[in-house]
């Protein structure tokens, strides 16, 4: 169950909006941040906060790329597979990343740290190949830079600035 403080905060935010429903993505993000992903329980809570049916919420939750309906790691590595990153060897880098973490696409490492998800063009084509990790770009990647990125993320104790 979501904490009372969070509920109050979200209720206030919804009340402030011109139309409650325009907050639905923000509310999904907030509960996703709380639970680590948008759990079934969270879907019901979003629905009740906004006066929507659970089906209406799930219809949105399953449509959007950055709403996770299954548990994900602390860091979600969105690996760009757009055409420019493809040109610069995104496929073999994705293989390298998955092998390194010993996961397949969509899986989470057993320590709960990393999930790898291929993602449409992230708008970093001038630094291809690139990935987005919790809102932060890593560009011009090579296997060595991927090693360094993973080491860095393992060391960071708290989530990144743009973390959801």
């Amino acid at each position, binding site marked *: 169950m979501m904490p009372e403080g969070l509920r109050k905060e979200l209720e206030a935010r919804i009340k402030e909006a*011109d*139309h409650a*429903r*325009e*907050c*639905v*993505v*923000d509310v*999904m*993000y907030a509960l996703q941040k709380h639970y680590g992903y948008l759990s079934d329980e969270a879907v019901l809570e979003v629905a009740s906060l*906004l006066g*929507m049916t659970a089906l209406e919420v799930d*219809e*949105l939750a399953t*449509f*959007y*790329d*950055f*709403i996770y309906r299954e548990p994900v790691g602390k860091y979600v590595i*969105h690996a760009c*597979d*757009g*055409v*420019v990153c*493809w*040109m*610069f*060897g995104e*496929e*073999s880098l994705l293989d390298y990343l998955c092998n390194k973490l010993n996961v397949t696409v969509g899986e989470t490492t057993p320590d709960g740290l990393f999930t790898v998800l291929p*993602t*449409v*063009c*992230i*708008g*970093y*084509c*001038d*630094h*291809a190949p690139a990935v*987005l990790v919790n*809102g*932060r770009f890593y560009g*011009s990647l*090579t296997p060595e830079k991927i090693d360094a990125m993973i080491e860095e993320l393992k060391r960071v104790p708290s989530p990144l*600035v*743009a973390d*959801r």
Partner: protein
Amino acid sequence: MIPVDVKVLFKNAQPGRPATFDEYCRGGGYQALSEAIRKLAPKDVTRKVKDSGLRGRGGAGFPAGLKWAGIPEKAGFPRYVIANTDEMEPGTFKDRVLVNTDPHMVIEGTILAGYAVSAQRGIFFIRPSYETDAELLERELQVARAAGYLGKNILGSDFSFDIVVHRSGGRYICGEATAQVNAIMGNRPHPIKGGPHMAEQGLWKRPTLVNNVETLACAPHILQHGPEWFKSLAKTETGAGTKLYGVSGKVHQPGCYELPMGTRLGEIIEEAAGGMMRGSEFKAALPGGASTAFMPKQYYDIEMDFEALKKAGHRLGTGSIVVFDRQSCLVAATLNLTEFFVRESCGLCTPCREGLPFIRDLLWRIENGEGKEGFIPMLREMSAHMRHAYCAFAPGAAEPVEGLLLYFEEEIREHISQRKCPFGEHGTDHAETHH
């Protein structure tokens, strides 16, 4: 003759950080808004934008002034201006660069649009990959508000207008205006067939203007220096203003470059982007993102503006140039592009939902040595069906396929006759990188 290095949208650019409010104001920022509010009626603002020849920078190239004038004076209230910051066209990153270069320029442009159509509320609709930009905009909106450029009775006038940042959950289709409106209303964001008349029945069934942020950023300059000046910035008769050309792919210096509208493709690649990468030779370019057709070498000198490309059977799209070299397999590239469209299709209408996977399957088989001669006419037929879709998504998806068929049919045939990709396993040579 305007010098080539004229900077309008990037005139306040600071290395490695966004221009501040003070820097923007020192460069003449917010003067256009102050003048407009004091001296111009909303319809005069619209007329100036119309006279400037400014065309939409988000891909479709619709004349901006006409769109603004499309909201009838007697239409109801409240009215909305949506600054489309969703930028998800593969190969396109100009709006990210623009927002990060001068956030107040897009803010002032949005307020001016709001004034011109007598709107009360502006909305930056922004993709989750650009979360840091969303935070930047929220911070700078607060600065603009504190300075009296946003909120109730702006600069002591009757005009009240405020802007919020709306975060998307992230899907390409949300860039389409009617889908974007659905997304903001908390509906499943699919486009609305035929498009309701946004000017009267847009967001919450109210008059709504949707413009790309690069388009909006041009407005302050048009008002400050006049429509004729803006027109004269372009290299071509039919063009107007400068353009943020994104260049990526096999060039020496990928990036986003502000150049006069109508600058030749070859000039953009050689002078702005430093030429091809060492050891690479130009083969083709997508002129404006994933939903435009490949342009082969014969178009190397084409003037990159809406009309010149249209005349040649191409589209400027977002003006984001993706450059392929001779080591790149264009069948594999088209397969990658089609995979993108298959994944991002909203699934609402049949041609798009069913047709695109069919095209993907044909391309996959050709790329993997299982192609047959008969696949070529099938690709042609299926691409033509994309025209029957509800929105511009599927016709856009068909464009690279049609370009491949038109200019590189021989390359498709080589795949079929050799029963493999002539370029090797991944269809592109990875030896060259920018590192």
